[in-house]
């Protein structure tokens, strides 16, 4: 529970459905000694004192026991260090996926299970569907759970063997968060519930009113929760100065055109803020970490139809054995693009896009879909 509208409605829905609900909030790492613009000590946005008070109040409304569990050290190690290391390695990392991989669906799930819970529910916009593989994909999870619930005292999470848990997009396409959840596998999904994923955001707002939830809606933000001021460049300069080394800006032939402020400050496809005057607009084409060089060129140099993806998690468990067609999202908010995926050794795959893409960014997630079903995802390699 974050104190925000989505996890609050999720808790209320579960309570209304008659579940025994325990509220958990994680205390996550934030920059030590940092202050907000107002001069207050900065907290991780996910667990500020206000957020804790809000979540505790909501839990109280529904008579839900509420606990804050510490994950600061693990978050720093698995998310913040990953973020810094990514930039140090010349890629644009996605720390939110790492948070879901290590913090939410490993640390917190284990904590919940150890407290005796059968499921971990979050306020994510996504859905879980449980199906017997032979039944295909069209059996709604709820019907299966009700109809085929194991007899006796077996916890609801311990479904019969052979059942496949699928990760689906939320019914609200605009809010869908399956991208960051693509790190989940069967061991996580069998314990996962996403109550708000069955609704659209307007419906969730309506439910929040119906439940009389006091949660003020916070603006949606893609900024990182552990930054004091949403400025990742300043964060890197202060906490990882080694990744902020100025270097040459070069064109495709290697000719030096100017100086850059540090490779971490640029993303592929970027046009603004390069700081060079040229006859035609210049775009960031790629980076060359070995020479600490930023490679720029005209728009015609952008766009690629192939990429390599590594560290792939296949939601269904078994990796595919043959090339197949699907769609791929190469950033959280990017549109899906048709592609052909060719599985390779070592949790890797080659991806051929039907149309060239200008914003293929190493370090970001590439997440594969078959319609509403999230097949899995990995990290775009250089």
């Amino acid at each position, binding site marked *: 529970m974050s104190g925000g509208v989505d996890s609050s409605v999720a808790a209320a829905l579960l309570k209304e459905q008659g579940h025994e609900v*325990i509220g958990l*909030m*994680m*205390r996550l790492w934030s920059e030590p000694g940092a202050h907000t613009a107002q001069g207050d000590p900065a907290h991780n946005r996910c*667990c500020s004192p206000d957020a*804790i008070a809000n979540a505790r109040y909501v839990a109280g409304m529904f008579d839900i*026991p509420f*606990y*804050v*569990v*510490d994950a*600061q*050290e693990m978050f720093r190690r698995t998310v913040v260090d990953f973020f810094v290391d990514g930039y140090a390695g010349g890629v644009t990392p996605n720390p939110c996926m790492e948070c879901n991989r290590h913090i939410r669906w490993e640390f917190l799930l284990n*904590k919940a299970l*150890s*407290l*005796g819970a059968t499921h971990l529910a979050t306020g994510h916009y996504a859905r879980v569907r449980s199906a017997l593989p032979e039944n295909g994909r069209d059996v709604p999870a709820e019907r299966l759970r009700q109809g085929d619930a194991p007899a006796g005292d077996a916890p609801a999470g311990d479904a019969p063997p052979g059942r496949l848990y699928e990760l689906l997009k939320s019914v609200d396409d605009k809010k869908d968060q399956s991208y960051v959840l693509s790190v989940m596998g069967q061991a996580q999904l069998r314990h996962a519930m996403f109550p708000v994923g069955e609704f659209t955001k307007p419906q969730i707002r309506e439910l929040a009113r119906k439940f009389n939830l006091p949660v003020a809606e916070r603006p949606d933000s893609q900024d990182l929760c552990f930054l004091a001021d949403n400025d990742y460049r300043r964060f890197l300069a202060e906490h990882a100065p080694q990744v902020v080394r100025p270097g040459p800006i070069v064109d495709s032939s290697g000719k030096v055109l100017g100086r850059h402020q540090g490779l971490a400050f640029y993303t592929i496809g970027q046009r603004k803020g390069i700081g060079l005057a040229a006859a035609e607009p210049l775009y960031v084409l790629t980076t060359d970490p070995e020479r600490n060089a930023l490679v720029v060129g005209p728009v015609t140099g952008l766009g690629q139809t192939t990429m390599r993806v590594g560290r792939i998690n296949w939601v269904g468990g078994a990796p595919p054995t043959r090339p197949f067609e699907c769609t791929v999202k190469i950033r959280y908010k990017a549109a899906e693009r048709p592609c052909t995926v060719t599985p390779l050794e070592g949790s890797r795959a080659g991806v051929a896009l039907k149309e060239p893409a200008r914003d293929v960014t190493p370090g970001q997630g590439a997440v594969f879909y078959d319609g509403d079903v999230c097949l899995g995802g990995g990290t775009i390699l250089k």
Partner: protein
Amino acid sequence: MTDPIYLDYAATTPVDSSALEAMLPHFRDNFGNPSSIHRWGRNAEKAIEQARRDIAAVLNCRPAELVLTSGGTESDNYALRGAALAMREAGRGNHLITTAIEHHAVLHTARQLAEHYGFALTVLPVDDCGRVRLADVEAAIRPDTVLISVMYANNEMGAIQPIAKIAALARAHGVLTHTDAVQAASQLALDVQELGVDMLAIGAHKFYGPKGVGALYIRRDTPIVPSQTGGGHERGRRAGTSNVPYIVGMAAALGLTAQRREADNARYRRLTGRLIEAVTQIPDARLTGHPTGRLPNSASFVFRNIDGNELLMRLDLEGIAASSGSACKTGDPEPSDVILALGFDRSWALGSLRLTVGRGTTEGEIERTIGVVTRVVGEMRG
């Protein structure tokens, strides 16, 4: 769930029925402002002055030596800040002494005096039973020492401090003694002549009185600056309209506590004796604090390699209300200063548990608690 069990009487106590009855007429019938000249005022003033006399009788002091406050924290704050500043103004010196196991109401006030008001501060260690050594006190006293503050009994592990001896030592050096008796007041004698202290702080909700009211005993002629300025209430030391019903409730609760003290303590000793006997049978579990020189109602432990916050969550889910040394409500994993001061390393200090019994505790509850704690600690160790 079977009936929940409250074993956190050191955190707070329910208001005794007779104290509540004593308070009720003073909300509506006898609602006057004690400062007013008319009969409503006189009647209200009569109520608080009678209450002041009743409290003075228990403390064996003059009624005029009591300042009625909003609780233990205010009393501690006022004692330290008020006396330290007045003593310095009188040219008596600039050095304060306190201990590592004080409640934050004392420790953080002392630190503020050091950091913002320029006082020198000595923080004394304790022995491994949680007691301050007289030799350390004597060694710490300097010619410019103005005030020593040592708690009467510790809130986290119940260790009773040799206040009378410390006060005698201080007096011989012309140093004031303050004692935080907030935790002790429900069980120990509060005779300020026998204790020999110059200031003593209590808060009503620890002894079956209401929250939000307390008192500070200040020996006549002790230099102290006013804590709140305004209408000159409390002989000019703390301005603000007196909280008549709460003061009446505090006096009633304190009188009753003094009257029942011996009988209550005998019963508490039996209950905590059984708890200590059984819980220390758990492997890698130890009693914290002094084996006998402790508050009768307090049983405190550490468990090696146990996350104390998680232990409290699990006990709560099992219906047992307990506490630990750390600020578990915010998920802060830092071990308690008090437990560290006893010499335990982190592997022990993070696993602290405090069980405190009270007037409502039954032997059946103690036996059930022993069973649950033993089982849950075993489960957590897998």
